[in-house]
């Protein structure tokens, strides 16, 4: 080992705690990047492999009832490679021992052989025996949620009749990676499940013999024009049979959620790592500047001995390289572990039969490279001034630091300040840039905490609005087929039902020129109380004019404004197209929806006065008995509990967010500690001589501690409001980046979030201060008198 390299290692060892603190900041940035990239890459690769191996379809369509011979016509659509027709029905399920309402979807499997498309991955048990009518496969999460085992029985309630089902296998389908039920935001396997039955038996039970009501197909290639053409053809073929409008893979529910998640992951992994790297660069620069200042005479001696500027430059740049290398090592390790933990969480909600880890090496290399370049720039900036000095000049001590009376004192505060307080202020104001950057660095720690917690606050707000202001029913009931409005009275007559409001909806395609969007138009009574449309200030909007009200996001997508006319294609018999005026838009938070006053909608659709479901407010004491009664009603396809939905979302959030929160807390503490501790060590190094002199002339340890810590305290306290502000700005940015059709998070920051953020920063300062204060006790009072600085 060369002598200079030994010097490097020993120098680093002397400031090991600072080196470690900076390396931790670097590692946090790299870990975040590796984690985000790792989760994104793995999910993407896993999804693609799953879709390919299990033949996930390209186009999906539902209809009322289509005769089997139509399948040939569908197969003949140009560009169609494979067609799969199925019977799919929504049922209410009776799981022994479960009193809550449980809904499910029964999907047919071919009588012989495996499905050509949307194939199942069998997790346990076996495939169906076509000769046994009662056999069924269940989805994995549903089986887990209810502790179902092979051989267990449950019942599908079909037209009021209980059809027994025996579980012979547990399976996963590429169609239900994110196995969400209708109207749900988060999969709720306790209350919704997927089951598969043999086509023959399912068709018999639902009077669908000789026909199908669901079709999926794959295309020869993935060109958008082929897809569009195929959808148009398919719609035309299914039209006479109650076609509900075909959708491309991109709009398929599970895939859509998965896609949304991937996009978020991809965007997430950049900004925050960059903050960490910037802070680390700054710290490295400050520490190196100090080291170089202390080693000024050594540098001169080395130059006098014949070392070149370049060699010395490299020597100090190696500092940065070692720190980044250490950080990269820690960061990559931690990032991989975090990615695995995150993937574990994802696998809970997104179900795949396989998992392919894929952390792209190039993204890691880029992260390390960027850190390295940034650190080198930081190091060079520190070294340049000294290396460029002629040796003879460098041999002499640097000119004494010049000080000024600080601005604060000049403004008149001077007379009130003790001498130690003046020292603190002047030390800070002598290096305003460094003090400023320290403040910004610490502020980022606070901001990261704010962002982490504010996500929770926003989610809470969203749930509060959705489940207390918009949806106020206790449960909602859906029917197999639209029923007479008089059903409302029947429901109201059940004992325990306090209030009933009908729901009605129609699937529709909204069109403005070439822009179109498939959605459902919800009918609402003008005086609806259980489900309402609310504006941005959470005030209920009264729907009393004919015409559509759209979610603002939907209106933007369609490029329409109130007063404009839209073409509405009703996805029912004959698919009539009507012109409807957009009367209003509403800044809602969840989903994208179209609303209409119920009577106007009925006239638009020109159908009888029917309803497709109802919302109920009930007496909680009568709950269980009421569930039984509702399930027994032949028309009822499903019953959904608002409280269960809310609870499910909260669990999901807690699962996801609590991990993110701990990671955020850890990183915020690292960054706060990194900045504060380094600032403290540097100012200790710079002022130790003064502090020792003060000790000699009779100042106590407490008094000199307060000088050093006063400086830290000012930086920290100044950083807090900035951190809160930065955090608020960042959360607003994050929220707008998260804005999707799924949800728009309101920017809400609970005062507690600010408190927690401030407390984290102050706590980090306390720990740094405590660590450095111990060094103050070891000041060598005698040595300081014998040396010139």
């Amino acid at each position, binding site marked *: 080992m060369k002598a200079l390299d030994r010097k490097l290692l020993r120098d680093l060892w002397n400031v090991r705690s600072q080196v470690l603190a900076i390396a931790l900041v670097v590692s946090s940035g790299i870990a975040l990047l590796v984690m985000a990239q790792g989760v994104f890459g793995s999910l993407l690769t896993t999804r693609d492999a799953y879709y390919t191996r299990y033949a996930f379809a390209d186009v999906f369509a539902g209809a009322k009832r289509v005769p089997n011979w139509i399948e040939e016509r569908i197969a003949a659509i140009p560009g169609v490679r494979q067609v799969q027709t199925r019977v799919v029905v929504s049922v209410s399920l009776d799981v022994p021992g479960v009193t809550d309402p449980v809904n499910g979807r029964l999907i047919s499997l071919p009588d012989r052989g495996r499905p050509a498309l949307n194939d199942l991955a069998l997790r346990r048990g076996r495939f169906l025996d076509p000769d046994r009518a009662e056999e069924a496969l269940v989805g994995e999460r549903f089986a887990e949620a209810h502790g179902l085992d092979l051989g267990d029985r449950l019942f599908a309630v079909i037209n009021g009749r209980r059809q027994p089902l025996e579980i012979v296998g547990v399976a996963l389908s590429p169609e239900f990676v994110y196995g969400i039920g209708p109207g749900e935001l988060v999969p709720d396997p306790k209350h919704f499940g997927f089951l598969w039955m043999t086509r023959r038996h399912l068709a018999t039970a639902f009077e669908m013999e000789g026909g199908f009501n669901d079709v999926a197909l794959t295309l020869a290639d993935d060109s958008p024009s082929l897809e569009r053409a195929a959808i148009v053809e398919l719609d035309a073929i299914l039209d006479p049979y109650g076609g509900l409008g075909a959708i491309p893979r991109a709009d398929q529910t599970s895939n859509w959620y998965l896609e949304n998640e991937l996009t978020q992951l991809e965007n997430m992994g950049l900004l925050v790592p960059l903050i960490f790297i910037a802070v680390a660069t700054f710290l490295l620069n400050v520490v190196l500047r100090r080291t170089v200042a202390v080693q000024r005479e050594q540098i001169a001696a080395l130059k006098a001995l014949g070392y070149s500027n370049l060699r010395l430059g490299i020597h100090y740049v190696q500092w940065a390289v070692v720190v980044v290398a250490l950080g990269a090592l820690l960061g990559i390790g931690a990032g991989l572990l975090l990615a695995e933990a995150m993937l574990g969480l994802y696998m809970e909600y997104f179900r795949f039969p396989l998992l392919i880890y894929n952390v792209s090496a190039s993204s890691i290399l880029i992260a390390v490279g960027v850190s390295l370049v940034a650190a080198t720039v930081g190091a060079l900036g520190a070294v340049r001034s000294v290396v460029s000095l002629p040796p003879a000049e460098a041999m002499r001590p640097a*000119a*004494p*630091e*010049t*000080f*000024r*009376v600080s601005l604060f004192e000049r403004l008149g505060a001077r007379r009130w300040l*003790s*001498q*130690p307080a*003046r*020292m603190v202020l*002047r*030390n800070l104001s*002598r290096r305003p840039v460094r003090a400023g950057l320290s403040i910004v660095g610490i502020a980022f720690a606070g901001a990261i905490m704010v962002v982490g917690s504010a996500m929770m606050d926003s989610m809470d707000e969203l749930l509060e609005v959705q489940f207390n202001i918009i949806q106020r029913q206790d449960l909602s009931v859906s029917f197999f087929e639209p029923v007479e409005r008089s059903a409302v009275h029947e429901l109201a007559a059940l004992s325990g039902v306090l209030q009933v409001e009908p729901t009605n909806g129609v699937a529709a395609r909204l069109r403005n020129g070439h822009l179109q969007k498939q959605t459902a138009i919800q009918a609402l009574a003008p005086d609806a109380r259980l489900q309402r449309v609310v504006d941005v200030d959470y005030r209920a909007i009264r729907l009393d004019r004919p015409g559509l009200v759209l979610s603002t996001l939907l209106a933007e997508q369609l490029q329409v404004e109130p007063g404009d006319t839209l073409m509405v294609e009703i996805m029912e018999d004959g698919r009539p197209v009507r012109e409807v005026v957009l009367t209003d838009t509403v800044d809602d938070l969840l989903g994208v929806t179209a609303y209409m006053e119920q009577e106007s909608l009925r006239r638009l659709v020109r159908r009888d006065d029917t309803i497709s479901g109802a919302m109920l407010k009930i007496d909680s004491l009568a709950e269980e008995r009421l569930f039984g009664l509702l399930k027994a009603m032949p028309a009822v396809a499903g019953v959904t509990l608002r409280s269960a939905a809310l609870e499910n979302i909260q669990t999901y959030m807690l699962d996801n967010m609590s991990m993110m929160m701990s990671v955020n807390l850890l990183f915020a503490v690292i960054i706060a500690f990194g900045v504060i501790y380094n600032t403290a060590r540097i100012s200790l190094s710079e002022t130790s*001589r*003064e502090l020792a*002199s*003060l*000790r*000699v*002339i*009779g*100042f*106590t*340890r407490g*008094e000199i501690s307060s000088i050093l810590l006063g400086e830290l305290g000012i930086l920290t306290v100044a950083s807090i409001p900035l951190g809160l502000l930065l955090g608020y700005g960042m959360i607003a940015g994050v929220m707008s980046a998260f804005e999707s059709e799924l949800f728009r998070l309101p920017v809400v920051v609970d005062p507690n979030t600010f408190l927690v953020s401030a407390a984290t920063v102050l706590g980090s300062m306390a720990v740094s201060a405590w660590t450095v204060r111990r060094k103050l006790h070891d000041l060598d*009072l*005698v040595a*300081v*008198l*014998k*040396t*010139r*600085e």
Partner: protein
Amino acid sequence: MAAQASAASVHRGPVFSMKGVTKVYAMGEVEVHALRGVDLELHEGEFTVLLGPSGSGKSTLLNILGGLDRPTAGRVTYREGDLSEAGERALTRYRRRHVGFVFQFYNLIPSLTARENVALVTEIAGDPIAPEEALALVGLKYRLDHFPSQMSGGEQQRVAIARAIAKRPDVLLCDEPTGALDISTGIAVLGALERVNSELGTTTAVITHNAAISAMADRVISLADGQITSDVRNATKQPAATIEW
């Protein structure tokens, strides 16, 4: 402890008394005997010069007198108080109330002006001289608001002296006060010390390797290799201004 005894109390005994004081430093694996059984008394109002080459132990002696260090063996008393047994807090209190220090490299606080450097001490002292007055005493009343970086070495050292005497210390300890100065500024500094000793009556000990300075002392103690080799009382004191080296 008695080291807290009021400086104003009338006292006729020695201010300092050392008996059999040794000091051993462990320098890595080698033991250095800085003091080997020193006996010494310093008296009220005396101006003493401790003379010796580097390594003779004079700085160690001064540090022990000043409460910056404790002897390995032997006994040191300040008035009735035992410095050799005092704890960290007691020594800090002792330095704060009774001792004024002047160092070779001044040890001023660069971020504070001359006046503020002195105020640093007057703010924590019981009955101080006003900073302006202390600075006037060392001939610096026109440099009150200058920062150390704006003053010459001699001026900085005089600020250090003003800082040391402003609390009216019972004893002024100076370690090579002219070591970093040229002769003319060095003489100005010595003049300041002389004036403080005569006008305030402060017991003063100056350590130096510059034998010329001993001419201005009441008493000259020479050290070599950790022991006192001579202890001489000057019959006449030479004014600082006439010293040459």
